[in-house]
């Protein structure tokens, strides 16, 4: 995770477009100023960041399903549940599944685990829009390469 730049996903472990599921890993940093305030002497990942990590995981799944033709933007978070504390240094495994692909929107369900322990879950809705510009698309391509997005999964039909 690079919390300063809001890059919460480190690597894609598995992307299954047939089942419309993704598994990613996200390493919570051992130290960050966020933990100095949240909370002094009791550092834990803020729930909003866990929610964002689930949203980013879902976003990569949707990008894959839509073959990078549309950009998902977070619209609705439902049933967000923080089920346990996530301290610094935790390796999170986040799974997301596409529940529905509508016209101009998509809905996922995501779960984050530390080992076998379920730490967070949510149902997340995204609006789907064209990439704002080529620069944004290029940025997402670079990010995809960095986190190991399996581009062959969307090119070998």
């Amino acid at each position, binding site marked *: 995770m690079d919390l300063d730049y809001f890059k919460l996903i480190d690597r894609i472990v598995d992307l299954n477009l047939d089942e419309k599921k993704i598994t990613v890993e996200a390493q919570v940093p051992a130290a960050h100023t966020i933990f100095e305030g949240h909370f002094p002497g009791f550092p834990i990942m803020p729930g909003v960041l866990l929610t964002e990590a689930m949203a980013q995981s879902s976003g990569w799944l949707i990008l894959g399903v839509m073959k990078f033709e549309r950009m998902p933007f977070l*619209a*609705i978070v439902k049933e967000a549940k923080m089920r346990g504390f996530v301290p610094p240094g935790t390796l999170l495994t986040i799974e997301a599944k596409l529940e*529905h*692909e*509508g*016209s101009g*929107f998509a*809905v996922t369900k995501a779960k984050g685990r530390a080992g076998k322990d379920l730490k967070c879950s949510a149902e997340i*809705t995204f*609006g789907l829009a064209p990439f704002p510009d080529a620069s944004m698309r290029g940025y997402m391509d670079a990010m995809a390469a960095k986190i190991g997005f399996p581009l062959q999964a969307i090119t070998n039909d």
Partner: protein
Amino acid sequence: MSSTFDQIANIIAETCDIPRDTIKPESHAIDDLGIDSLDFLDIAFAIDKAFGIKMPLEKWTQEVNDGKATTEQYFVLQNLADRIDELVAAKNAAPGA
């Protein structure tokens, strides 16, 4: 079995916390019920799931923006129910349905 309109009205009432008895077939989802685009995403998800369809919201929006259709054609609830019935019929008539 309840009518398509009744199913839509129930979804809207539950999703948007609008009293069910205020939702009429002649109600306009936006102008009368005040449903915004974000709430409509929720409604569309629920309708898609309930009827096993994919409402072509983007196509409808484009038609309205292009002046080829009015919002009443899609967002007056009885009209929306009719559009949904057409989508369900088309789905059932499709090969392999």
